């Protein structure tokens, strides 16, 4: 049986996704990038989907069965 790592992969993946999404939105708000709806909506959906997928694949946090 593979031992679980010493960190929570779901939190790590979600954090990376949230940082990437936040960075994208920050660049848009700072007028560095001009993101239109056709790019932003898929990005938001992909972020939410990625987070849900990571949490679903990793399972509940340690300490919870």
């Amino acid at each position, binding site marked *: 049986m593979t031992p679980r790592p010493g960190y929570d992969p779901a*939190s790590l993946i979600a*954090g990376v996704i949230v940082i990437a999404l936040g*960075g994208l939105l920050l660049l848009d708000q700072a007028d560095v990038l001009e993101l239109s709806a056709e790019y932003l909506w898929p990005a938001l959906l992909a972020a939410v989907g990625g*987070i849900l997928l990571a949490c679903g694949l990793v399972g509940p946090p340690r300490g919870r069965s």
Partner: protein
Amino acid sequence: MPQPEEPQRRLTRSTTDRLIGGVAGGLGRHLNIDPLAIRITFVILAFAGGIGILAYLMCMIFVPTDDPSAPPQKWGLARTIGAGLLAVAALAILIPDWLWGPQVPLLLVAGAIVYLLVRMLRDDGGTHAGRVAARIAIGIVLVALAAGGFVAAAAGTALGGGIVVAGLVIACGVGLVGGAFRGGARWLIAPALVLALPLGAVAATDLDVRGTWGDRTFHPATATELADGYEMGVGSMKVDMRDVDLPSGRTDLPLEIGMGEIQVLVPEGTCVTTDADVGVGAVNVGNGDQGGIDVDVTDDRYVAPGVPELHVSADVGIGHVVVGDRFLDLDGPGRWRDDFDSLATGTNVAACRGTA
């Protein structure tokens, strides 16, 4: 016989009771207050212009950990720069009329309710029905808080605070990554999405509601008054161009509104060209109407030399743009079907060719 002096209790961050940096756990231990109440207070103050986040970061910088194996706290370059950046952030936050400030009393009440309900559940007191009711009440309060945060993030972005909201999203992401190595911090996913989704929605529509709110009708008398155009935050903008004697060549009319409608009234037989950008809504100009998300309409037609041309540049976050020869009752029935024939395309084309 002299009593031994009681050792002074020193404020430290807790390594045993912590969700992020152990600040609330350490403060609770030091002040003999439930750390849960302190955590909720930090969250509430985070909505008071970000003071809660700032205070938490300050505590993480200045308050040492209670871990005896941790190296003694020293003032290094990074810590000095960090404190300086926080001081700058504090000055930026303490500007007047911060948009989330007035909602703090409501959040305080909600926080107190959450605290009492969570305490009731943790203490395992009351009847089974009471605990179920407490869980339902917590759920309702949390949904209400999430909805409030959603609206606040959208409003904050639309009012020009998008950079701050994006910064908070990134802070949540950093907290998630850091928390991943301390047992996980998945609870940060919810506030991150509550902030990011409305921010993305507002960013996608380029919604900016800064400026005048209400219904305004503009009556420019000369073409020179049109150079700077007109700008509003939310409401209805009507621009009556019938008294303007347009000179030969192109006259630009830039118009901008965050949320609402723009109607431009032109004399019959005027050559009008349009460049309209609408985040969510519809555009009706001489060559028909278009609606949906991210609507970009360019009605750029041939204009004969010497013919007076009115070029309307309209930028709307959410709403619609109408250019016609009479104002429309946009609240009436069939508004998207029959009422948009005011600027006859054939007449407009003829006007631009100088044959009207």
